[in-house]
């Protein structure tokens, strides 16, 4: 049950938006088994914004993340990532889009047979920079505090260190968009906080956009914006620190002490 929307019904592309979603619908399966998981999602993520995507399990937030990451083919609606329309793109073109996006998974997914540096270099090789790949990898790992572990294999690294290597791999090519799926779920409080602090700094310094799916309440404060997805629909979209704005401001009448005395 998928139809291709004519591109002319959507707004024109905008440079200031890293992710520009308009009326996106997504279905799993085909024919009779088709199940809709995203309903009419429209979302603008400006460049340099840190956005947390939250919601109950099964709400479709991970699906939305995978779609933004060009990991699945799209038919219905408009999803522009870093200026490129993903709806209707074939597999080969999608692969090319992925190279500009950094993925951070919940599991580090590092190759046990490669050192930390080599794992990161795998990402650099995609760009063809064979001569500088080692330097780039070491620089990235050092920025994450792993300078003395660059030649260690994952079995000699702690959980937090492995996740940082995975993050280094995701960021070494300085992608403009970083997609993270529960990046702190497997980490202790300190490592988790370090990771999100790094992402926060990175976003501020390099202007990269971070879209993170998480349940971790400890790190919500790092976000500029929290988007809540429930049953495939956008439920709310707020900035965590402006908590006053989520309540309507009551008008205050002339206050007298009698109000507070029984």
């Amino acid at each position: 049950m998928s139809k291709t929307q004519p591109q002319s019904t959507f707004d024109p592309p905008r440079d200031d938006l890293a992710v520009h979603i308009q009326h996106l619908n997504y279905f799993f399966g085909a024919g009779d088994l088709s199940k809709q998981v995203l309903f009419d999602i429209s979302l603008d993520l400006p460049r340099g914004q840190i956005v947390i995507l939250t919601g109950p399990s099964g709400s479709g937030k991970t699906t939305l993340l995978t779609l933004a990451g060009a990991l699945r083919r799209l038919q219905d609606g408009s999803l522009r990532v870093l200026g490129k329309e993903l709806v209707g793109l074939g597999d080969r073109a999608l692969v090319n889009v992925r190279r500009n996006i950094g993925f951070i998974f919940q599991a580090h997914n590092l190759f046990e047979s490669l050192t930390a540096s080599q794992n990161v270099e795998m990402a650099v090789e995609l760009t063809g920079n064979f001569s500088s790949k080692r330097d780039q990898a070491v620089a990235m790992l050092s920025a994450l505090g792993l300078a003395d572990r660059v030649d260690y294999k994952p079995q000699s690294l702690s959980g937090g260190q492995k996740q940082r290597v995975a993050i280094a791999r995701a960021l070494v090519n300085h992608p403009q968009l970083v997609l993270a799926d529960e990046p702190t779920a497997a980490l202790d409080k300190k490592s988790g906080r370090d990771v999100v602090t790094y992402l926060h700094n990175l976003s501020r310094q390099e202007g990269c956009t971070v879209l993170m799916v998480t349940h971790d309440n400890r790190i919500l404060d790092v976000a500029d914006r929290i988007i809540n997805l429930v049953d495939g629909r956008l439920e709310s979209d707020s900035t965590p620190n402006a908590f006053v704005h989520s309540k309507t401001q009551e008008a205050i009448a002339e206050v007298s002490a009698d109000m507070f005395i029984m």
Partner: protein
Amino acid sequence: MIKRIPLAWLNLTHDRRRFATSLAGVGFAVLLMFMFNGFMNALYDSQLQLLNRFNGEIIIVNRLRTNMFVPRAFARRRLYQARAFDGVQDAYAMYISEVNWKNPETRKSRGVRVIAINPDEPVLSIPEIETYRQLLKLPETALMDTKSRVEVGPVEPGIISELADRRIRLVGTFTMGTDFASGNGNLLMSDQNFLRYFADRGPEEDKRSFATVDIGVVKLEPGTNVERMVNVLRENLPNDVLVMARDGDNGFVIRERNYWQENTNIGFVFSLLTSMGFFVGIILVYQILYTDVADHWAEYATLKAMGYKNGYLLGVVMQEAMILSVLGFIPGVLVSQLLYTAAGNATGLFFQMTPERIVNLLIATFIMCLVSGAIAVRKVQTTDPADVFLTLTQVLSQVSS
């Protein structure tokens, strides 16, 4: 070092124990193929031991002698006729038959093959004939093949026993090797002795005399064109004899080999067994590759999410297949070489590891690994990078709820 990270090599070798067992597995499959192939070739090659010792370029036999050991004779006159042609240096006579030899120790009779020639004629390239030439001219004497099977008993000069119920004395030994028709061993004697023992071998064989010959060996003048000579003889000799070059594509050796290939089950059985070895190899290598893909499925899917093409992953799997095939082949060959020697000693058959056979089996090993790789690769192709997200989150949500 400006080159790609060798992911295939590193993945394969990371776990040393697993790598060693993988190579052992491939080596085993290679070993199986070598052994079965080796047995088959040994059986064929052994048939040709005698043939390869004929001191002549052209062979003449009775046309009905479909393989070398069919007991059909032709007239010696044909040899005289052959000698008359230009280019023919000489034409020698040879007799051959299968007879019972009594083991002097166990007193049990065993079939052996008897070959008879004129000791003064250089019919066979067996140096011991020269050594024992005078002794062979004595009555009731023979040389025994040291490679005869154990059942014939002790093989030394001086042994006296019975051949076809008649007394015989071994005056020396030579080395050749057994095959199907030789039964348990080979005996070499003079033609005169042969005719004394075996002029009449009963209804199964043609009667023999000096007027008949079992196999004619024609030696050409040096530099004579063999093919031309074969044609000349064919045109000029009557049709009751078959004239063939010994070597070459249409030669006697090949004909013999083809006979054994087509008329026995050797070819079928051993080819079947070799194929089984091949398929065992495919399954083994596929297992190894599949396990690597399955164990590292999340990592490979992550590569896809990073932007690696499917082609790269296929390349990694195929590289692993190649590495396994080459490195597994080496121990396989080495052990096979040892086993060839052992088997040769045990059976008396001629086990030969020729460069051609090594190359053939190396190619077979390559193909074996390519096929396994191609099958394993399909698994990789179906890896959906998005599943890496979903599966993990689903697992986590199950755990936390």
